[in-house]
């Protein structure tokens, strides 16, 4: 071996030497164009990164839309009675259309154009200036139009979550008016405060109280969950609740919906990295682990309390875990995600099984119990478990990463999270109350009792979900 190895090594060295010399000679002859070639190389690299990031962002946008339709539409549709299945699904679908129109005209601008600390300005109305060029403050490697359409999908699902609270009793016209006003008065300011340039709570773009909310624990889940509670209280219970049995007409539909929500949530959370890099992976992993732990938590809790592990419990647990990990997903590691998910699974179970019964409100499909409670748990725990190794969001003057969450010793962050949570609760509660009052005195909120008994499919839409005729 050694006798034959020596000449082989010598040959190899000769080849490498020749190669280096050739390169040097070539480089010398190409000297005048080197800066140009470097510039071209840089452009190519940037373009390649942009292509990769943009591909992921468009995929994520589609995944998040899939969460509303069919995901949420099926999840909620299965939980109502047969006579209200279409009207419930229609509410989610109508929001896909209505919020989109509103977003193009006004919503995106109120969220993301430069403005005050509380709401964006009118710089982007009618999507003016939103094109192929990136907005480097938000996402430097993708067209601003990609960012705009990704954010639109969040603006759609957030109000759709509220519909679970007033299911089976609100007029369609009232729902439509309520949601338009809610998008402008509650969602747009909250999104601007947390994610918009100069927003009061923005963690990276100069906020007064930097609140960590990676994918919408405060903006999406607390606002929708708390508004849901206010709606349930204001509208009152469904006729016959709680004396009569009001059972889900198809847990099967809900099951399919929940599975679609779980998958779509990867776009929601990992997409919120706004790039296809390792942060997206980290958020993806945290999201999945939290959902799994929450299923375990919820099912164990009901198994102990009721003696049986239920399918509806398992899927509800998954959603609770996904809600809770939403604000934390881009800041915490997988083991923290397991803890957050488990706490949310058990916590949300007790909200819907115990707390709701004690207070007696009819949050029909548990929008508050899951999104309000899960969002609050998640937003606060983000302040506990966020670490700089996952996302070095805070830096000192020398640009070195500093402590992020409580477990790294930054107790102050928990306080900031509390401020963010409090503002989200107050804005949602007060805003929703005012809007409900306005809608109540203009078009009226509830359907007539005979229409409620007949079912909203027939009374609001003149059709039925299941026509089994021969």
């Amino acid at each position: 071996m050694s006798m034959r190895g020596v000449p082989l090594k010598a040959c190899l060295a000769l080849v490498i030497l020749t190669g280096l010399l050739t390169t040097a000679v070539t480089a010398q002859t190409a000297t005048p164009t080197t800066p140009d070639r470097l510039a071209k190389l840089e452009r190519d690299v940037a373009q390649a990164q942009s292509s990769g990031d943009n591909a992921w962002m468009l995929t994520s946008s589609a995944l998040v839309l899939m969460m509303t339709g069919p995901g949420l539409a099926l999840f909620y549709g299965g939980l109502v009675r047969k006579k209200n299945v279409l009207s419930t699904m229609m509410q989610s679908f109508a929001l896909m259309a209505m919020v989109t129109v509103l977003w193009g005209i006004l919503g995106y601008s109120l969220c993301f154009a430069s403005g005050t600390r509380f709401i964006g300005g009118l710089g982007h109305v009618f999507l003016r200036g939103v094109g192929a060029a990136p907005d480097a403050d938000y996402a430097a490697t993708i067209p601003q139009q990609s960012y705009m359409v990704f954010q639109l999908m969040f603006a759609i699902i957030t109000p759709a979550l509220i519909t679970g609270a007033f299911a089976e009793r609100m007029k369609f016209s009232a729902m439509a008016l309520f949601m338009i006003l809610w998008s402008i008065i509650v969602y747009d300011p909250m999104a601007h405060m947390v994610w918009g340039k100069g927003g009061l709570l923005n963690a990276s773009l100069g906020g007064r109280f930097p609140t960590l909310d990676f994918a919408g624990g405060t903006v999406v889940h607390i606002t929708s969950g708390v508004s849901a509670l206010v709606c349930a209280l204001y509208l009152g219970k469904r006729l016959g609740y709680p004396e009569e049995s009001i059972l889900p007409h198809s847990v099967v539909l809900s099951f399919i919906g929940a599975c679609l929500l779980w998958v779509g949530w990867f776009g929601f959370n990992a997409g919120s990295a706004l790039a296809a890099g390792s942060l997206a992976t980290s958020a993806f992993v945290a999201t999945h682990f939290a959902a799994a732990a929450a299923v375990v938590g919820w099912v164990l809790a009901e198994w102990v309390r009721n003696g049986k592990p239920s399918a509806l419990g398992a899927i509800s647990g998954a959603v609770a875990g996904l809600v809770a990990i939403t604000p934390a997903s881009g800041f915490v590691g997988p083991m923290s995600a397991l803890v957050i998910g488990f706490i949310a699974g058990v916590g949300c179970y007790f909200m819907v099984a115990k707390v709701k019964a004690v207070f007696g409100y009819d949050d029909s499909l548990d929008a508050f119990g899951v999104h309000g409670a899960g969002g609050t748990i998640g937003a606060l725990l983000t302040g506990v478990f966020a670490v700089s190794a996952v996302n070095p969001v805070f830096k000192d003057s020398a640009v070195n990463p500093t402590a992020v969450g409580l477990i790294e010793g930054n107790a102050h962050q928990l306080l900031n999270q509390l401020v963010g949570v409090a503002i989200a609760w107050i804005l949602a509660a007060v805003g929703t109350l005012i809007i409900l009052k306005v809608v109540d005195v203009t078009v009226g909120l509830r359907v007539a009792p005979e229409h409620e008994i007949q079912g909203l499919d027939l009374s609001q839409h003149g059709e039925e979900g299941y026509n089994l005729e021969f």
Partner: protein
Amino acid sequence: MTKIEAIVQPSKFEAVKEELREIGVDGMTVTDVRGHGRQKGHTEVYRGREYTVDLVPKVKIEMVVPDNLVDKAVTAILSSAKTGKIGDGKIFISRIDEAVRIRNDERGEAAL
């Protein structure tokens, strides 16, 4: 002519149908029904809330037979549908005045 209505456990329906066919009952109308007699329902739990479901699923078999088949039919149903537990169902027997076959206007037992 006699009409026999038998309300039986869904799990026993196939056995009842076979037994009736063997003794020569040619036609029947079958419906999925829900109801209760002495049998108590069960509880279901959705998101921690318990609901009592007191209407339990049964199968209702209706048939109109010539009078000479009534006893045999009842015996057949009893032997195939009985488990001896509460919830096995009931049999109702009533007189039928007339039967008409729509296809060719046949009347009486010929129409069965």
